[in-house]
Each structure stands twice: as structure tokens, then as C-alpha cells.
């Protein structure tokens, strides 16, 4: 099949990697390396859902709605614990390239993994809880935002949980650790680490590491993430407190 002229041959792909735009320890959006984006959280975004929440971290905007617990479909096998159904989708206008909106299978399963440890599934046998996340605008670190927002929505829906779930990710560049990376930073990172934890219980429900890491760096990143997680947890609790006090 090779052409006789021999002009066609394979070539190794060229990685055109931009370098992150750091000047004197300040990132492109003016934050320091260990500084998270400003967060806005609000419960009750979707009226039709049993529980819902909206989260905005910088340019990343996410709506999560929770339906249920409702009776499982007959086709499903009997189970004496509840089921958790997660689905993450992107709007068509969420990314700079239009028309890529669809369900994100990988994020869906990651969200499921992150939440199932925190929800007391045994409290609602034979039933299903559906969690639908919709990314309105993706400005980096979508998954951590989705997970935190989802736990807020679950709490709003009155579903029994051990603790709120918070999540923060860190990007690794040669020597620097950058917390809560934005879209541009994520596209040129050397590695990433995401922690999902229950801050008041000091338990981790999920840990995802990609890329090349050294042991001390992983330690440093984990400390950084856990610290940020507990702070995010405080903000989330404040948001729920506020919602609860208006309901009194």
C-alpha cells in the first residue's frame, strides 16, 4: 500500500505547547499560585427539581439538579440500597469551539464515584437518585466545581449524607503548583491532581492524579488541596445555612 514514490512517510507529532503565562508568581488572571478563584454558590436554581444548586467559579458556571429519590424502573434488579445516577453534560456554547455539547461519559462516572461514598444509599432502598449536571460555561476545573455543586444540590434535596463533598484540583508545572487552574493553564499543564473529600470527617472519597509527579510534590499538592477543600466546605455550609434560615 505504500506509494512507490516513497514521499509519504510517518512523522512524529509535534506538540505545540505554550508555556503558561506566569510573571513574578502571578497568573494570567491576576491570582497567585495558591489562590483560588472567587466562588458564588446558590441553592434552588431549578424549581422543578427536588434539589438544585448553581455554582460559579470564575468563568466556570455549572447548574446541578437532583431528582428523587424516586422508584427505580421495574426493569432494574431489586436492590436493598438506593441507586445513584449521574450525568454530566456540556451546553453547546460552553467551550470556545461551538457545538461540542453532549454527555461527558468520563465526568459522569467520576462524579458518581465521588458522590457514592458520601451518600447514605442504604436509607432509600429500591429507589434511584438522579443527578444531572450541566456546564453552562467551561473555564477550567469543571469536574471539581461539578462535584462540589452536586453535593450542595443533594443537601438541598434533603438526601442523607455523611458530609458535604468538596473538591479542588491542582495543576503541576515544572516547579510550580497552581491551584484551581483555568482553561488555558489546564491545556499546558504537566500533570494534575484532584482531591474530593469530606472536610468535617477528614475523609477522601476520590483522588485523581494524571501526569508526572514526584512524591514530595504530591504531598505538597495534597496539603494544598485539602486546605482549600475545607475552606470551600465552609463557604458551602454558609450558603446552606442562609438558605435554611430563610425557610424557617
Amino acid at each position, binding site marked *: 500500500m505504500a506509494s512507490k514514490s516513497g514521499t509519504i512517510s510517518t512523522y512524529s507529532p509535534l506538540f505545540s505547547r505554550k508555556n503558561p503565562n506566569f510573571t513574578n508568581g502571578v497568573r494570567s488572571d491576576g491570582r497567585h499560585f495558591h489562590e483560588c478563584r472567587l466562588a458564588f454558590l446558590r441553592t434552588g436554581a431549578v424549581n422543578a427539581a427536588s434539589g438544585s444548586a448553581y455554582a460559579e467559579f470564575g468563568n466556570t458556571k455549572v447548574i446541578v439538579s437532583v431528582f428523587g429519590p424516586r422508584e427505580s424502573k421495574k426493569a432494574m434488579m431489586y436492590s436493598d440500597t438506593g441507586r445513584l445516577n449521574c450525568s454530566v453534560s456540556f451546553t453547546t456554547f460552553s467551550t470556545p469551539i461551538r457545538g461540542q455539547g453532549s454527555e461527558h461519559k468520563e465526568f459522569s462516572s467520576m462524579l458518581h464515584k465521588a458522590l457514592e461514598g458520601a451518600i447514605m444509599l442504604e436509607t432509600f432502598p429500591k429507589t434511584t437518585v438522579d443527578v444531572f449536571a450541566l456546564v453552562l460555561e467551561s473555564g477550567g476545573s469543571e469536574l471539581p466545581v461539578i462535584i462540589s455543586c452536586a453535593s450542595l444540590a443533594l443537601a438541598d434535596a434533603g438526601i442523607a449524607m455523611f458530609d458535604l463533598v468538596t473538591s479542588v484540583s491542582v495543576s503541576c508545572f515544572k516547579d510550580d503548583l497552581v491551584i484551581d487552574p483555568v482553561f488555558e493553564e489546564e491545556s499546558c499543564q504537566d500533570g494534575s491532581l484532584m482531591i474530593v473529600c469530606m472536610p468535617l470527617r477528614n475523609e477522601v472519597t476520590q483522588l485523581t492524579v494524571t501526569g508526572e509527579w514526584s512524591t514530595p510534590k504530591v504531598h505538597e499538592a495534597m496539603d494544598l488541596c485539602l486546605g482549600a477543600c475545607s475552606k470551600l466546605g465552609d463557604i458551602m455550609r454558609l450558603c*446552606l445555612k442562609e438558605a435554611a434560615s430563610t*425557610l424557617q
Partner: protein
Amino acid sequence: MRDVNFAMTQTQKVRLKRALQCLRDCSVASSPVIVADTIPVNLEDNILKGHGTAELEGEVVATLCGAVERVNKLVLVRPFRARYKPEIGDIVVGRVIEVAPKRWRLDINFIQDAILMLSSMNLPDGIQRRRTAVDELNMRSIFEENDVICAEVRGSQNDGSLHLQARSQKYGKLEKGQLLSVSPYLVKRRKQHFHYLEQYGVDLILGCNGYIWVGAHSDGGGKNEDFEDLSAKLEDKMEVEVSPLAPHKEEASSVPLGTRENVCRLANAIRILSLLGFNISMELILDTVVASVTWNTTVRDMLGGEFYTRIAEREAERRSSKRATQV
């Protein structure tokens, strides 16, 4: 039904804010807890941990967002926004979602569908007898899909499914009215859940599951008559084994405009109360309705910023004066 943003002027916003703050100060209930908050208890009292609590490192923590309630030794969290938790004898309003063999499946805001067996309801002819195959075929003539009905919680089976019963004339199909859904937390269990408001000609059913029915009054006697009529029709047709229900004669008798307005007024009063997060009680609903009439608020203006604010202020005033007399 929450976070409805009425168009409000700046002064209304300020007034509302002040009223809500006042309400918050007056609330006698313990402060709300949220997931993983520690519930202060005296561990030497041998307390019992109820729903919505868990133990963590020797402390009792909440697993739900809600209000802490204590009954003797039992400590439990009543969630603000959660599905309905049935108790035997509760009166519920629900919607038929499926007609299955020998049973109806109802949506009553429980985590599962509730079941109303054909055998646990009075037949239209009022005779106690075994249910025959013909009865089973005629189930759709009693309740159809999407009918709103009212029933009582009978109990739950071993597998957790919930059974209802409707063994009285007061239960049954609800027509000519509105179904409202509020958070089940807001409807407290009372002696009386059926209300007939004579002055408005309206029936009000406060379902414990947070579904509230506001409808034109249907006379109990008339209902019987209707049923008799229906059963006579059924008997006529039993031989042919079909019962395409003749067009309802109720459709002919329309509800007068005044009653319809009253239904809407009551429904809007309940909507406003549930938006403000007040417990839905008969007295408060009537009070709100009377207030709306005395303030000359039209039915449609009841769902507006001004009325919302005034109701909040009114309740705040009442609670603070009540507290003042107690002190």
C-alpha cells in the same frame, strides 16, 4: 415554588428584609442544622438517635439539612426540603399514575409510588363483598390515570412499599379545583385535615404529604347520589362487560364564578404562605384570605411583591407581639 422573584420596589425590599429579620429573631424553633453539623446533646442522657442523625467520634451529627427536634430521649432532624415520610393514618392527596392489576399506583411525593388496592377501598355501590373480575375490569371507571384522589395511609409492607386505603365517603376522587404542592415540612399533623369553608363554598384538604387540594365544595350527599347513579350505570352495563363511562354529568354543572375566584384566592394565599415558609394551618390561611379581602387585593395581585411583603410584616408583627406578652 421558591425563590420566586417578584418585581419589588426598593422600599418593599427593605420592608421585606426587616420583616424577615424580625421573623428570624422571633422563631422559637432551634436554629437549623445542615449536613454534618454537630447536634449538641448531653451524652450521659442515653439519647436515641433518630432519622437524619449519625454518630461520628462520639458526637451526634446531622445527615440532613433541617430543624432538630427532641422527643424525650429521641433526637431527630426534620428535613426542610425532602420527600414525604408517611405515617399510618396520615391523610394524603395524590395523583394516579398507573392503573395496575387490582391496584392503582399513586404519586404522593414519597420516595416510592404508593399503592391503593382495589380491595382497600369502598366500592361505589357501598356493598361489602369480594371484588370480582368485573370490578377489576371496571377500575378505570372509579379512578383513571391523572385523577387526583385523597386517601389515608394504611401501612407499609415488608418490602417497604406503601399501601393506602379509602374506606370512607370522604375519600375519593377530587374534582373542580386546584392541586398545590408545598414542602411536606410545612404541613403539620392535625386532628382535622378536611375543611369545608362554608363562607367561600370551598373544600380544602391539607394532605400530610404536602399536596393541598383547594376545590369547589362537593356535597357529601350529592356525592353519594352520584355514586349510586354511577353504580346503577355500571350494573346496567355489567352484562356487556364494558363501562365506557357516560359523559360525566358533573361537567354540565359548572362552578359559579364566585366560587372559582374563592378557590384561586385560597390557592394564592397558600402559595404565598409556602413561599414565606410559614406552617400551613387553617387559621393562617383564613387570616391571609381575610387580609387580602380587607386590603382590596385582587386575586392576581396576591402573587405580587406588595402583598408578599405585607403578609410577611403582618406575621412578624404578630409573632413579636406574642413574644412580648409571653415575656
